[in-house]
């Protein structure tokens, strides 16, 4: 039942949303559940056509609560599961993103960000869900999030997201934005055998082995092996605080043990997850930190500033979560200030402030239009003047 190729190897001129969909296919996504929402609808539309054509499942659910619940169920049944949404839908997903964290169900959610809060600007760009991605569900937890700056990165980051999700058993987000989702650019899709693939850690024990505790992390990485529905393990997965057997254990001691492990498995291994690109940073005395569509404007701004003789560099975030705190600390010994442009009124800039005592200058707009290079350039000139 495969009249179509799963991996469309070759060069394409693709919409960012479509590139997200193709990234999912290339990563081996075999289950999509979602609810149409602008400006992410084109991801769902592309997968509605493409997934069944390669024998995989596409379901349009009744809402995003159901979509995210379905992702967790599919993931724990062994599927590589993804969804795509935008702010209002992301809000509804938060409940079961917490469940994915608690049950350690790897899955991927693409958020094509639009102007917010509430219904906000359905068709126009925003970057104001960045903190929601990190803290939107209740409780202490860790996730990972990517932030593509081009359709090519939409493709690449969805693949990275699946691999990070499966490696660490967490939900992973691709925090794109409307500008990137709705622009078309060249996307090069490699041959299927060159798509990086990380497999989930599977149990060494057979079903019915009394020594096997499916929620026990025996390895240094703190990630327990995953068992899937129907394999005979007859495991209990619980949204309640649970013990190493997976059974409810609603007491302070097992709670601290579980939550600490869920957090530490990421916090102690951020170096294996964090990715960024440094542009002109070698001799920089000023650093711009940017991500998503805004990173493109930042790039133009630093090129312009360099022509004016300002030694400014760009730290372009590929993963926005976990945040590259060590890099910011390290740069604090080199540069005199940070400029952080973003299409929100100051979100990732707060994170920068947590890890430096240097001035952090936000360049902000609430959204609806892409950040232009000029206000970033103005901020660079201003900082240079005052430095």
């Amino acid at each position, binding site marked *: 039942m495969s009249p179509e190729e799963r991996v469309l190897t070759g060069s394409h001129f693709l919409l960012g949303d479509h590139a997200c969909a193709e990234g999912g296919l290339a990563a081996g996504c075999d289950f999509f559940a979602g609810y149409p929402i602008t400006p992410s609808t084109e991801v769902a539309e592309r997968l509605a056509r493409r997934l069944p054509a390669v024998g995989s499942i596409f379901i349009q659910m009744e809402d995003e609560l159901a979509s995210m619940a379905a992702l967790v169920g599919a993931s724990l049944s062994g599927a590589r599961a993804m969804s795509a949404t935008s702010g209002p839908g992301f809000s509804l997903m938060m409940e079961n993103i917490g469940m994915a964290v608690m049950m350690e169900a790897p899955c991927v959610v693409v958020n094509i960000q639009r102007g917010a809060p509430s219904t906000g600007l359905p068709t126009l760009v925003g970057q104001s869900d960045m903190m929601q991605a990190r803290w939107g569900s209740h409780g202490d937890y860790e996730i990972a999030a990517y932030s593509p700056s081009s359709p090519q990165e939409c493709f690449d980051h969805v693949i990275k997201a699946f691999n990070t999700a499966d490696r660490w058993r967490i939900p992973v987000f691709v925090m794109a934005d409307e500008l990137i989702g709705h622009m078309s650019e060249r996307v090069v899709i490699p041959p299927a055998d060159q798509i990086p693939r990380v497999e989930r850690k599977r149990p060494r024990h057979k079903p019915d082995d009394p020594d096997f505790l499916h929620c026990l992390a025996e390895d240094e990485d703190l990630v327990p092996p995953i068992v899937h529905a129907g394999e005979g393990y007859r495991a209990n997965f619980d*949204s309640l605080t649970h013990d190493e057997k997976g059974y409810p254990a609603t007491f302070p001691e097992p709670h601290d043990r579980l939550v600490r492990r869920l957090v530490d498995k990421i916090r102690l291994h951020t170096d294996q997850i964090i990715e960024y690109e440094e542009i002109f940073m070698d001799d920089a005395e000023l650093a711009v930190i940017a991500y998503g569509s805004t990173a493109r404007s930042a790039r133009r701004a630093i090129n312009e500033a360099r022509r004016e003789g300002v030694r400014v560099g760009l730290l372009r975030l590929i993963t926005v979560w976990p945040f590259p705190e060590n890099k910011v600390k390290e740069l604090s010994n080199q540069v005199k200030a940070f400029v952080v442009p973003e299409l929100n009124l100051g979100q990732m800039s707060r994170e920068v402030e947590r890890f430096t005592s240097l001035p952090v200058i936000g360049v902000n707009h609430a959204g609806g239009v892409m950040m232009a290079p000029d206000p970033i350039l103005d901020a660079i000139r201003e900082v240079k003047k005052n430095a």
Partner: protein
Amino acid sequence: MPEIVVESHPIDTVFRTERLPHIFCPGCGIGPAVHAYAQAILESGIPKERHACVSGIGCSARVPGYMDVDSYHTTHGRPIPFATAIAVVKPEMEVTVFSGDGDLFGIGGNHFIHAARRNVDINIICINNFNYGMTGGQVGPTTPLGAKASTAPYGNTEPAFNLPYLAAATGAVFVARWTALHVRQLKEAILRAMQKKGFTFIEVLAPCPVGFGSPNDLGDAIEEVWLYRERCVVDHSVYLPDLELDLRRKDKPFVMGNFVDIEKEPFDPLAMMKKKEGE
């Protein structure tokens, strides 16, 4: 006469016996319903490795944790979309949602009607005790009009759902109602649901002496079960709108039965591709 020592019961094999005793209150009606479900698993001929049991939150939602099958205790109201995913990813599995009326029809009501409409191949066993029991007897979508609850101290101002009627109207291929007293009929209904492809719904009326019985003067569990015994009438072909329930009303019987048993194509996300291939 020699003493006979019974070390185990055949039904023990479908329980996680090391997790017993359970958390349910004395007199709770969930236990007999669990027994019927366990017996149905044994008799289904489907190995327990191929059963999955999914729940939301509430007393009834603790049941999967006692069953020796793949079990998932999910978030409040979301077991149906979770189970939907298991059923489509692993179509060979027998997926049962075992949860309560508040979970499935209050916070999770939207998922119920859509899964029924899709005819997802899952079984729903709904313990209906007319209130939110775990949190201490709050009013819910099945609490009868006028009944008392901790959040309806003057009496419930809202009419209740007629669950079998709702399930039938939204597309379930098998719809039944039994009580915690009718364990044999209940087990047979669950077995029938497991045999069927598609969305099946079984409502189980169950005493909650603490949460519902006491504030509504139904007496203790024994008295409520006596009420079932005296007032229950089996009528498989009842007119479904007449299935409204109010345990406090002495003038109306409680109608039990297997009300709907029809055949319809179960949900298959790839159905149109298979159809295309067959052309």
